[in-house]
């Protein structure tokens, strides 16, 4: 049987969801006989390939670059999982929404600086006015809430999907878990 092609993607999140994915520990090594990680911060492939079977997306959509990436990923992916509360609800990254991007820059690059205070202005990706969750940009096939979802949740969901079963997410995790 050919291996299932899996990608993990990191957008505007804290990497905690990726760390929880790694918390499968030895079980992740065992899973590698059935899955191929074709794109992930953990492996050395630079290009998101075509025909990815399963993608786990961490983080919210905050910049035009995130927006561009998620649309490209959706096109090349059969089954897309919103991994963790930031992807599902925009969670912590969305806390900047009531302020908007400008006051954030002002605090970081004018107020909290001792030399050369200035708002960096070259090569900056345009920020979206509001940080929003993944499903507001592309269809999501499975929502996996939690901050982060536990390693057991990842393991159950992956083994269910590999066996062709529909995982019962509500019994595994919840918002803020």
């Amino acid at each position, binding site marked *: 049987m050919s291996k299932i092609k899996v990608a993990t993607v990191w957008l505007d999140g804290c990497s905690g969801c990726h760390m929880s994915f790694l918390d499968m520990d030895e079980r992740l090594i065992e899973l590698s006989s059935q899955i191929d990680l074709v794109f992930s911060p953990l492996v050395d492939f630079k290009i998101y390939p075509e025909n990815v079977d399963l993608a786990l997306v961490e983080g919210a959509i905050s910049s035009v670059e995130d927006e561009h990436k998620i649309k490209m990923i959706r096109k090349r992916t059969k089954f897309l999982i919103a991994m963790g509360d930031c992807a599902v609800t925009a969670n912590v990254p969305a806390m900047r929404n009531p302020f908007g991007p400008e006051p954030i820059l002002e605090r970081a690059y004018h107020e*909290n600086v001792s030399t050369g205070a200035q708002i960096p202005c070259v090569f900056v990706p345009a920020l979206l006015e509001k940080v929003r969750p993944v499903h507001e940009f592309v269809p999501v096939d499975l929502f996996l809430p939690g901050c982060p979802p536990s390693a057991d949740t990842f393991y159950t969901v992956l083994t269910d999907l590999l066996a062709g079963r529909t995982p019962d997410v509500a019994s595994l995790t919840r918002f803020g878990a």
Partner: protein
Amino acid sequence: MSQTITIDPVTRLEGHGKITLKTNDQGEVSEAYFTVTQVRGFEKFSQGRPFYEMPGLMARICGICPVSHLLASAKACEAIMSVTIPPTAAKLRSALNMAQTIQSHALSFFYLSSPDLLLGMDADPADRNIFGVVKVDPELGRAGVALRRFGQHIIELLGKKRIHPGWVVPGGVTEPLDSAKRDEILAMIPEAYANIRLALNWYKRIADRFRDEADHFANFPGAFLGMVGEDNGLEFTDGKLRLIDATGKILVDKLEAAQFDDHFGEAVEPYSYMKFPYYKPLGYPDGSYRVGPLARLNIATHAGTPLADIEVKEFKQLANGPVLGSFYFHHARLIDILYGIEFIERIFSDPTILDTHVRATAGVNRLEGSGVAEAPRGTLMHHYKVDENGQMLWANLVIATGQNNNAMNRGVLQTAQRYVKGDKLADGMLNRVEAVIRTFDPCLSCSTHAFGQMPLEIKLVAPDGSTLDTIRRG
């Protein structure tokens, strides 16, 4: 013909990175940029929220080292409350910090860097990952997975969750330790010792193969900042800060969190969203310094635990004075792990660790507070201001990786000039340019807490520290 080479994304890094190298007409690398792409905003959006919520919120800066943020944040809150936390709470928190150091270092060394060290910088990219390591050297790969699990499992036993535990609060911790969990932790220790011993022995066997990398991976004189204990030994949680220069001379000593701003400033460059912290008396950029495992071992005179003491002594023989090559971050990281295991064993063997008084309470007694802790990657500082009701007015965070910003830039250029030639773009050469960044184990998630993408400037600096050339994009 001059050309631009882009490595995007930089893989096996804990964050969003991109390196751009520019070559000149002779095909030599003349410019290098390390770019980070992520958007955050914690210094601002914490405003208006209750200060006691900060540890739990600030931990969401980073899922790799949330414990460091929990601790620096809780300590800043305790300065606002003007309380001293109960001694057992302090011990439990310091053990939690070492558990995190172990898991984070295991991630860096085994999952992210050992593929280069075991399989070689020129190996097939398809194999250059932890699965490739497990295939070629199952014992080593599994030791790494087990060490990371060891750290994460202790965090889970203490804080109920491996990532973003809610256990650390301003004033101490929410719950005392019970003896069953203590016994479970102590029972895991022998396996952890066996695994780190295996890794250290293996590293020492192969380190010689990378002598050329060691000479060119961000190897230059410069200052180092880190925490030390009262006896000048290693300390990660409750010590004071010390800054030394490239010869080992102490520039600043016994620095408390509240004095951090007096000595260290942050610079901004128009082309970078990652700030550049520096030691104020030397100015920017001459006052740039390194933090993290290498800095800590250069600063401390010894470890303070028996097995790590032997390793530190051996490590210090690598150089006459501070070890200046950033390749040795790898070695230092393994010694940190060994020290951490010994430290944890000592803490949990102490009967007072089961004491049930683990939390102090108080309201707002001061309108400003700072806290520092050693994160796995180096010194971390949180500084808050609040109003009388405890509502956050302002926050500034100085993150470990940011303090290595200048050194990483210099390192990328140094490595690129050594290994990348314009007419031959072998993957192994480019991988070395990424590998120099990996030695610093940058947590880009943390360092972009403020905001954004980071195209950068490369300065070419002579051994005496004078600037030979400045390269900037645009």
